[in-house]
């Protein structure tokens, strides 16, 4: 079998990390590898190089303007955006794992292999319009994450968290699969564009509605929207810090990007179903905002607070679906970019300050802002951005979402949204207070974690840059992703018929 250049271009971004993921376990076969630094360096370098090379390759694809396809895989602009998103998150995670695994004294190469497999699955999840492949991709990125959650068993709750994630994840997968079955049964196709075309013609059958609802549930579980959120805090708490950050950003991000694709080109094609889904999303978004924010307010554990806060961010992102315009989808992509920076920065603080085991309470970071001024300032910028205070990227993300929401007439939702972010100020100030306004517990020198520290610093700088120049990201990346990447069903099917 020979591949045309176009087909090669479509699968290369998947192939590189996948091959690297196969190489890493070979490199770390030596059972005694924890003592050998050079092996550690090699496996981390393989992972980073693979991610970097795929990233670079996708950049070239983006610049050339090509949208290559291979079978059901199509690396269109939206998938290319997702590739940037996933590879950057994964690179952040790899860098933070470098410090974190050493701090936990549990360095194993497999963890990187799983991470890379998961990244490939995530990318596939956003790059296909075939529901079967979508399901396979979902499993491909979920199963490594179940394992990764339970991976550091020195942590007391690691197994419990991994098990919880696995069981609830299995239920979500079942819903997802059942939704696919129903949609296939009613329309006779796995291709979301054709399904969308069929849906647009028919009035809604209750079974189609059920199928769409089940599919949506599968997505919302991955987005960790209320009421499908219960796994989130326990799982994040159990997982290694960088993996928790990766789950909170990348899983949520790709689920939303794939949802944009499915929602816009399939479900929303039928006005009736689209409206019902929108109504459901209004309820869920409000619940997510309220419950996510108020439960986060009650946390004393820094890491759990971040977990609940990531639930609340799912609520803001869902608001974008309620607005449902192309501009709103662009706003979601912008928000995701800012969310990537600020949330991975915030989770990076955990490894950068060397918090190991369950010592992730606010009291564990007391006074560290003064001891490590660079990381302290960058972390503060991340938290301010999570609150949505200008001039940070997080503010512009919220601004764009609320603007689209108001333009579509959902003023009350916008008010709920801003009040929710007012509540969020209450808990994002806690780590800032702990870092700067409370005396440190002891005079010991803080842990040096160069890679994690660097990720936090980069986040801080990029958040400010993005806050000063939001227009460039929006017009350069988010707009082409949506306008060229998101081809709705009617367009393509018309083309095919011609």
């Amino acid at each position, binding site marked *: 079998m020979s591949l045309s250049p176009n087909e090669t271009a479509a699968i290369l971004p998947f192939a590189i990390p996948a091959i690297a993921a196969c190489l890493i376990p070979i490199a770390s076969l030596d059972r005694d590898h924890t003592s050998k630094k050079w092996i550690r360096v090699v496996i981390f370098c393989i992972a980073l190089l693979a991610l970097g090379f795929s990233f670079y390759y996708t950049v070239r694809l983006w610049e050339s303007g090509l949208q290559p396809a291979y079978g059901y895989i199509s690396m269109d602009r939206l998938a290319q955006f997702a590739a940037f998103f996933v590879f950057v998150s994964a690179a952040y995670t790899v860098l933070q794992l470098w410090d974190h695994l050493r701090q936990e004294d549990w360095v194993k190469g497999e963890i990187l292999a799983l991470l890379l497999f998961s990244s490939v699955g995530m990318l596939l999840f956003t790059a296909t319009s075939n529901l079967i492949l979508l399901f396979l991709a979902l499993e491909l990125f979920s199963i490594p994450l179940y394992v990764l959650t339970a991976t550091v068993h020195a942590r007391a709750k690691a197994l419990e968290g991994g098990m919880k994630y696995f069981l609830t994840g299995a239920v979500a997968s079942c819903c997802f699969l059942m939704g696919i079955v129903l949609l296939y049964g009613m329309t006779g196709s796995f291709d979301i564009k054709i399904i969308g075309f069929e849906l647009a013609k028919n009035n809604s059958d209750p079974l189609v509605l059920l199928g769409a609802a089940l599919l949506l549930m599968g997505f919302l579980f991955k987005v960790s929207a209320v009421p499908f959120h219960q796994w989130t805090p326990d799982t994040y708490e159990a997982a290694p810090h960088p993996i928790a950050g990766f789950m909170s950003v990348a899983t949520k991000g790709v689920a939303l990007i794939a949802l944009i694709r499915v929602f816009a080109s399939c479900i929303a094609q039928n006005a009736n179903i689209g409206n019902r889904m929108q109504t459901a999303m209004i309820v869920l978004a409000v619940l997510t905002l309220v419950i996510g924010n108020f439960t986060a307010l009650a946390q004393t554990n820094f890491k759990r607070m971040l977990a609940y806060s990531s639930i609340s961010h799912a609520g803001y992102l869902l608001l974008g679906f309620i607005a449902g315009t192309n*501009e709103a989808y*662009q*706003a979601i992509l912008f928000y995701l970019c800012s969310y990537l920076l600020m949330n991975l920065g915030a989770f990076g603080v955990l490894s950068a300050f060397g918090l190991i085991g369950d010592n992730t309470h606010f009291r564990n970071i007391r006074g560290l802002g*003064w001891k490590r001024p660079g990381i302290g300032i960058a972390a503060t910028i991340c938290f*301010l951005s999570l609150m949505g*205070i*200008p*001039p940070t990227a997080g*503010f*512009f993300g919220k*601004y*764009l979402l*609320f*603007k*689209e929401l*108001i*333009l579509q007439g959902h*003023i009350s939702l*916008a*008010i709920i949204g*801003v*009040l929710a*972010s*007012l509540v969020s*100020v*209450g808990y994002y*100030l806690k780590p800032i*207070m702990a870092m*700067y*306004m409370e005396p440190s517990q002891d005079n010991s020198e803080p842990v040096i974690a160069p890679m994690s520290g660097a990720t936090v610093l980069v986040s801080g700088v990029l958040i400010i840059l993005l806050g000063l*120049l*939001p*227009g*460039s990201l*929006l017009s350069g990346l988010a707009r082409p992703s949506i306008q060229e990447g998101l081809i709705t069903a009617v367009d393509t099917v018309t083309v095919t018929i011609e």
Partner: protein
Amino acid sequence: MNHCMSTHILTFLVFAPLFWGLLLLALPNRLALLTKYLAFIGSLGIFVIAALRLIPMLDSGSILFSERAPLFTLLNIPIDYHLSLDGLNIWLILLTTFLVPISIAGTWNSIKERPGSFFALFTILESCILGAFLANDLFLFYIFWEAMLIPMYFMIGVWGGAERKYAANKFIIFTLAGSLLWLVALLYLATQAGSFSPEIMAQTAMNLPFSKQCWLYLAFALAFAIKIPLFPLHTWLPDAHTEAPTAGSAILAGVLLKLGGYGFLRFAIPILPAAALHYAKPLAILAVVAIIYGALVAMVQQDIKKLVAYSSVSHMGFVMLGIASFTLIGTQGAMLQMLNHGISTGALFLLVGMVYDRAHTRMIVDFGGIASKMPIFTFFFIIVTLSSIGLPLTNGFIGEFLILNGTFVSGFTWGRVAAIVSVSGVLLGAIYMLWMVKRVFWGPENQEPKSGTAHLTSDLNIREIAVMTPLVILIFWMGLHHVTFTGASEEKINRMLDDIQAPPARTLLLNAPDQAQHGAQ
């Protein structure tokens, strides 16, 4: 005139302190003394440049500078980088640039821990305040308005008193509550108008149904009323003022609160004039309540700083009353009162800070008979007190007189009642200030070895005298020749009132227009 330079003076004013502050922030802690000197020299330089460039503009009638450039377009709504300087903000700009070096010099030794970072943040704060005063695009204004919370939050939270964390959180959450709801209103107007320019927004707002206008105005008013702060939204202020370090209190009272009043005059009223007129009465009632309530609560305070903080509530109530009167005199009085309050309350906080640095207490009962121990300090304190009370010849008198006059002659039916009731606020002001002065300064010396008086071993030094002298000069200058300070804003306010079609001022008892003209001459 060098045209090129003149068009960038505003950008310079906004961003020079920011870059200076960031530079200072990067200096290590062991260079704290150098940082302090650099912060002082930098802010003094900015004041000198501002004064040299802006004061000549005062005579030129309608002014002034404007800088405009498209910044970016986000999802079809363009956002402009638009700064402008006119009669409404020129004195507030000068006040801000003036108070910053004064506060730094006035609290030179008060900050013991990490003074370098504190003064770096202080300089950054100046940049945000100047940006908010100069911004003529609502998006830009919003960014500066929110951004200034960050340095202020750290100043209160890190360097404040015992309850500093509580005070800092309360400050930031109160302010954000108002501004986030306001953001929704702002976004609604912007999506309707397709722009953040106040002029275009005003035109769009005119065509909206009146009930919508009212909602929008309420959102605007909420954000600004919290900042002023208007009763019953004032509760963050006593905590923030009391817990903040001296320089923070001085700049908070001196400048930050003014942004509320300025916001009404610059944005809320011109954009939504009909609704502003509709809600004049409730705002005036709240203002009167604030005047009386603030004064009554100030009277029973044990802590001098808290007393001054509550007196701010009362004084800023006057500002709100003047704005709500919709007369030229009243509004000009409000403008003047904002400057007055900036000078005299800023000075009071600095003075309280000076005595606190020596005695390490601010409780009134800990003092008594300071006058004999610190005569120079007493001299300055009494002058500032008299200014705060509103004694004729001082600035306080002119401001309150103009406001009461404006309210009394305003076309509203409630005007006279409001003016008459508010006069008692002046009286109460005299009572609480003089009573405090009596207990702290006069009488026999407090002989207890642990009392505050016992710790007062030195009078004001040269530095402190040098800080207070310009403030005292300004107090008398504003009292004797207020036209210097009100002349600039007259035209702007007149135009604003014309657009609003406020009920014409009555001319029965006091010949209001004549007096206004007289004032302008």
